[in-house]
């Protein structure tokens, strides 16, 4: 096997690993409220979400071959060779940039998961790529305009818009159904909640699986295994199958720590609020893509849940938890960038295939450590809905006293 081929294989494995963390990091965006209100049993919820993510990933035909164009200037953005590397950049360097960026993204995803914090997987990926791009090329390789307009501005407004919409929805729902029996309300809104949450899962599959397909396509183009011009007519089937499966598998395993924070940590959610939150998320994710602004599912979902708390008169919003999330959002991009840059330097110093193997081993070791750390205070389907203790970090969530029945 040539060095280039080895790096390519490691990169594809790592890209699928990122896709997997993307899936389990984001299960909560769609399903946390349904699990918290009891509309769906925990395992049923993640199963439904996984299937819809899988279907969504297969449904999407918008091939994101120019995945990096919003943050880096390493790909041609138009013409017949759209998606190919810009002139002057060799395949090996490009592979290492993408590889190091992916490692930054995965490690940050796992780190935030360990603390039960929902953070944007897209921000993690872009952050990682920006970091490795800066380390490899310097500031000229960065698309500053794209970063500002496509990432920073939407990130500031997504939670705000979602919060307003969900708060208005919650207010209206409670005003309209005032006086109805609680049982009837719960039953009706649980159904509505399941429908709207399903829509969020489907939209997530069509959007997010594309990112990984794009990364793999880019690596294949860089090494000459795929013709840039042919990408417009679709990607090789194995790429679509592998990416769809990886994100669905991640979704199915469920990021329980994050589901717990979103469903129980921010606000104590009742079914009417759950429906308002999911309807708001679905509407915003779908309309923002029309307006040419891809908002992060994570930011929208979190803003919506917060809004469903603000819209109900006597609901308590745990601002300390919301604050921790805010910190995680602000740090996602720079933190992933730092890891991405470090990985590039390490790989570059060692050089060639050994360099790639070393950063892959670093990724495996740190991932293993974080997984082990998480197992010490495990959160899963049995204790995801346990009482939230004020001030408790997700890593110290209760383990021995499951309060919900087994799913």
């Amino acid at each position, binding site marked *: 096997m040539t060095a280039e081929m080895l790096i390519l294989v490691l990169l594809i494995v790592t890209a699928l690993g990122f896709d997997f963390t993307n899936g389990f990091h984001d299960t909560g965006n769609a399903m946390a409220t349904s699990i918290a209100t009891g509309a769906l049993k925990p395992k049923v919820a993640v199963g439904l979400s996984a299937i819809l993510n899988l279907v*969504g990933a297969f*449904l*999407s*035909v*918008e091939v994101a071959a120019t995945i990096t164009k919003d943050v880096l200037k390493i790909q041609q953005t138009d013409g017949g060779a759209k998606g190919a590397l810009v002139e002057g950049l060799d395949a090996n360097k490009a592979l290492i940039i993408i590889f190091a960026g992916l490692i930054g993204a995965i490690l940050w995803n796992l780190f935030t998961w360990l603390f039960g914090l929902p953070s944007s997987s897209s921000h993690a990926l872009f952050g990682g790529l920006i970091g490795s791009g800066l380390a490899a090329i310097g500031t000229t390789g960065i698309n500053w305009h794209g970063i500002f*307009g496509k990432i920073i*501005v939407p990130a500031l*407004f997504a939670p705000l*818009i*979602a919060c*307003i*919409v*969900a708060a*208005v*929805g919650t207010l*209206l*729902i409670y005003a*309209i*159904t005032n*006086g*109805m*029996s609680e049982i*009837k*309300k719960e039953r*009706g*809104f649980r159904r*509505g909640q399941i*429908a*709207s949450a399903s*829509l969020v899962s*489907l*939209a997530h599959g*069509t959007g997010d699986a594309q990112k990984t397909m794009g990364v793999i396509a880019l690596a294949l183009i860089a090494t000459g295994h795929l013709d840039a011009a042919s990408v417009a007519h679709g990607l090789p089937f194995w790429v679509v199958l592998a990416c769809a499966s990886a994100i669905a598998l991640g979704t199915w395993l469920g990021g329980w720590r994050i589901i717990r924070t979103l469903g129980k940590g921010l606000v104590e959610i009742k079914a*009417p609020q759950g*429906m*308002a939150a999911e*309807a*708001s*998320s*679905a*509407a*915003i994710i*779908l*309309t*923002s893509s*029309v*307006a*040419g*602004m891809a*908002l992060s599912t994570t930011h929208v979902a979190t803003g919506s849940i917060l809004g469903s708390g603000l819209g109900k008169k006597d609901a308590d919003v745990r601002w300390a938890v919301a604050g921790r999330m805010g910190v995680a959002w602000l740090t996602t991009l720079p933190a992933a960038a730092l890891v991405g840059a470090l990985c590039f330097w390490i790989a570059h110093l060692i050089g060639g295939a050994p360099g790639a193997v070393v950063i892959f081993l670093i990724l495996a070791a740190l991932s293993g450590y974080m997984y082990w750390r998480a197992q010490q205070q495990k959160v899963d389907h049995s204790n995801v809905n346990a009482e939230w203790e004020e001030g408790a970090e997700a890593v110290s969530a209760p383990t021995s006293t499951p309060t919900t029945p087994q799913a």
Partner: protein
Amino acid sequence: MDIVSSISKVLVVGLILGAGLPALFALGMRAEAAGEGQLSRPANPALKYLGYALVGIVLIVIVIGILWVTRQTLSYYFDLRIFPDFAYK
């Protein structure tokens, strides 16, 4: 000022669909409950059917939402274009 106009568009449409639809669903539920005589009023079949109709409208919009998510695929594989041109790439 592209960004500002995109954001306000998302906010307005988001309010209509994201808050308006749940409100419509709630109205439907209330009409249904009232029609069945659950809100200290005599049962009224007309109200009950109004309730069903409102919930039906919400369902139709959800189906349109799913068609929207899958629009590119339907257009690509089946040449099915149910939305106006601006929706397609």
